[in-house]
């Protein structure tokens, strides 16, 4: 299974995931993962928004921003998002390893 992040917001369940197509789309839109250290304030929300493209592509940007604002443990969240973002390329390079594949669970505090 690909790395996914699931949570419920406003009674709706969300599954965040990156596919090869969504990673490519983000890059085509100007997202450069290597710039994350230089421009974290712009790129981290963009990374979060990009994770919606696979399963919730029609969710509006302001809803995504709202969800992002409410996400707890941001530092850990960003680390997990980065891992998820790297998953499509890592899957092309590494051997199957069932143990390393885990789903991440997230809850909101409101």
């Amino acid at each position: 299974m690909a790395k996914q992040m699931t949570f419920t917001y406003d009674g709706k369940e969300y599954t965040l995931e990156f596919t090869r197509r969504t990673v490519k789309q983000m890059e085509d839109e100007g997202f450069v993962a290597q710039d994350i250290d230089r421009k974290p304030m712009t790129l981290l929300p963009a990374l979060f928004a990009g994770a919606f493209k696979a399963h919730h592509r029609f969710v509006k940007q302001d809803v995504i921003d709202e969800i992002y604002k409410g996400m707890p443990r941001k530092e850990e969240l960003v680390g997990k998002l980065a891992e998820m973002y790297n998953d499509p390329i890592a899957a092309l390079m590494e051997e199957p390893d069932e143990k390393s594949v885990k789903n991440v669970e997230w809850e909101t505090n409101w």
Partner: protein
Amino acid sequence: MGNELVTGSDSPAATGGGNRRKPVVSRYGETFENLCGYYMSLGMSYHDYWDGDCEMARYYRDMDEKVKERQNETLWLQGLYFYEALLDASPALNGMSRKHKPLPYRKSPIPITEARSRQEEEEKNQEKLNAGMEAMKQMMAGVNQKFK
């Protein structure tokens, strides 16, 4: 001033020291595009490659390795049959040999599964037992003949 000197917002570090060079920033998208054909050759659909679970690629590679190993084993087995057949037919091919009659080709395929191997072993034992019983019967018949 040339147009290329003022275009683009990438820093020299990101572009490898100048806009004339290709950016050194690696794009996953390019790698994905380059490898798409390879994964499709393994049997992965275009949709699965781009939109499916990204982990699928690992299992397609794993499958490909197993298919190659199986093919290799099949070819090896074919070679073994060919070698055996050649040896069996060799008396007919040897003009200097007194016996020109080729040996018969094997009756059944080489057992490659455990169950088939066990079955063959049981059949051989049964044949031996039957042959032993037959020999015993003949011996007994011979002995009985003497008392008549």
